[in-house]
């Protein structure tokens, strides 16, 4: 069993809502309220409120911050417009992924949201590499909520007029019930929705206001995981790590065009070589035959039983009512339709490489419906 974790600002609120709390990323967090399947389906059909206050919210500021961050990330920050969150990666010298994150220019500084379990390491990694004069401020006084689902816009726009004008991957400063809130139209479920940063001291009031809207129910980490798996979104520490590169992880979209050509970020030589020649292995989606889930840690095996790949996330898809997984497989096996053998729990399962997302994204893009 894990050690009991630290508590987050909404700890009492979760317990009062009937959450089952479990240790996660060093904190006590809600795994579920009424049940993972019901919460998953509610989010896909209506709107789910997630507490993601364990995530690290950082401000990186100082003279030359744009160039300094470009030395750590493969994003083109020079053309990144204000209030436009961008998915990016902290990379090591071997091109491995130290963390995945969202970076947003906000006036003279950048706002980063990094993973909860990795935030302390990220800060140390950045502070060791950023020049003097560029500082990292860990906003420990900020909490973070996510409101996800097709009715998130209806619920939130009632409380915060104007958020309906945001499009996918845009953000701005608003107020909820008088509380300043940095709100972006983004998320980790594949649905339309918002991420909402508010002061920890006011987060209970904000959560209560949002959860009181008829479309909204609180959703735990269990459904967050099944939702992001269906959306094909990788989870750091499982599908991404120090030993996976962005090319292997099929995150080439996070390598901006100019940066790919010019380099100047950690691991560029390896990454450029993989872009030119192809990686040895690649992250793919798998549809698994039968009903039994194949989970993280299962091996992909060849016809002689040798381990040639591994499952990094897997579970039962509530939307598809079938098991799905993400795996790293040799490039020769990475084409959609390719069948692979998976060894788990003393038996062999058959998976078919399937394009991700498993369940279509429903983001509200600019100019879209």
């Amino acid at each position: 069993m894990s050690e009991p974790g630290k508590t987050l600002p909404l700890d009492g609120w979760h317990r009062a809502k009937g959450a089952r709390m479990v240790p996660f990323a060093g904190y006590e967090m809600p795994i579920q309220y009424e049940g993972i399947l019901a919460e998953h389906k509610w989010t896909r059909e209506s709107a789910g409120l997630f507490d993601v206050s364990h995530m690290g919210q950082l401000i990186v500021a100082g003279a030359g911050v744009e160039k300094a961050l470009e030395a750590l990330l493969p994003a083109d920050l020079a053309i990144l417009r204000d209030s436009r969150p961008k998915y990016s990666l902290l990379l090591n010298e071997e091109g491995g992924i130290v963390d995945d994150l969202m970076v947003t220019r906000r006036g003279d500084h950048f706002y980063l949201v990094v993973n909860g379990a990795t935030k302390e390491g990220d800060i140390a990694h950045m502070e060791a590499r950023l020049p003097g004069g560029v500082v990292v401020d860990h906003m420990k006084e900020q909490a973070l909520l996510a409101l996800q689902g097709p009715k998130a816009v209806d619920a939130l726009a009632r409380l915060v007029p104007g958020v309906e004008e945001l499009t996918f991957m845009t953000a701005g400063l608003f107020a909820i019930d008088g509380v300043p809130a940095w709100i972006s139209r983004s998320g980790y479920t594949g649905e339309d929705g918002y991420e909402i940063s508010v002061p920890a001291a006011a987060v209970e009031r904000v959560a209560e206001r949002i959860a009181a809207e008829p479309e909204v129910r609180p959703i735990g980490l269990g459904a967050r995981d099944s939702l992001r798996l269906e959306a094909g979104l990788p989870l750091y520490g499982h599908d991404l790590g120090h030993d996976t590169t962005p090319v292997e992880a099929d995150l080439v979209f996070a390598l901006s065009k100019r940066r790919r050509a010019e380099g100047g970020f950690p691991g560029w030589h390896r990454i450029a070589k993989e872009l030119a020649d192809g990686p040895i292995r690649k992250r793919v989606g798998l549809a698994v035959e039968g009903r039994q889930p194949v989970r993280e840690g299962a091996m992909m095996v060849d016809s002689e039983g040798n381990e040639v790949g591994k499952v990094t996330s897997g579970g039962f898809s509530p939307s598809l009512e079938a098991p799905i997984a993400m795996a790293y497989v040799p490039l020769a096996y990475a084409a959609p339709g390719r069948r692979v053998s998976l060894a788990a729990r003393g038996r062999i399962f058959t998976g078919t490489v399937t394009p991700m997302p498993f369940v279509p994204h429903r983001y509200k893009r600019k100019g879209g419906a």
Partner: protein
Amino acid sequence: MTVYYTREHEWISVDGDTATVGITDFAQGQLGDVVFVEVPEAGRSLAKGGEAAVVESVKAASDVYSPVSGTVVEGNQAVVDEPSLVNTDPEGEGWFFKLTLADNHELSELMSADQYKSYCEEL
């Protein structure tokens, strides 16, 4: 008919020399939404404490152990077809398998309903 319980959260309902086995309401609550069940074939010989069935929820996989030694009479096809029965009626329609007992004395090592209730309260 007497019902006994194990520390691994199986129940066994005994009627003469045959018995029905499932997982307890406490166990299904801990597992959460059950999405997959595998039950043993009729005729299979089970050892006390040996792996007998598999139950998987959205978040976890778990083995179901046989509380006693015996021979499987029937696996419950209904829970294979509709795994959520384990959540909705764990100690009724959501049973896993029936077996004939090899040794009635093994039952004396199991917990009564009251003992099991106290056991769960201490977890």
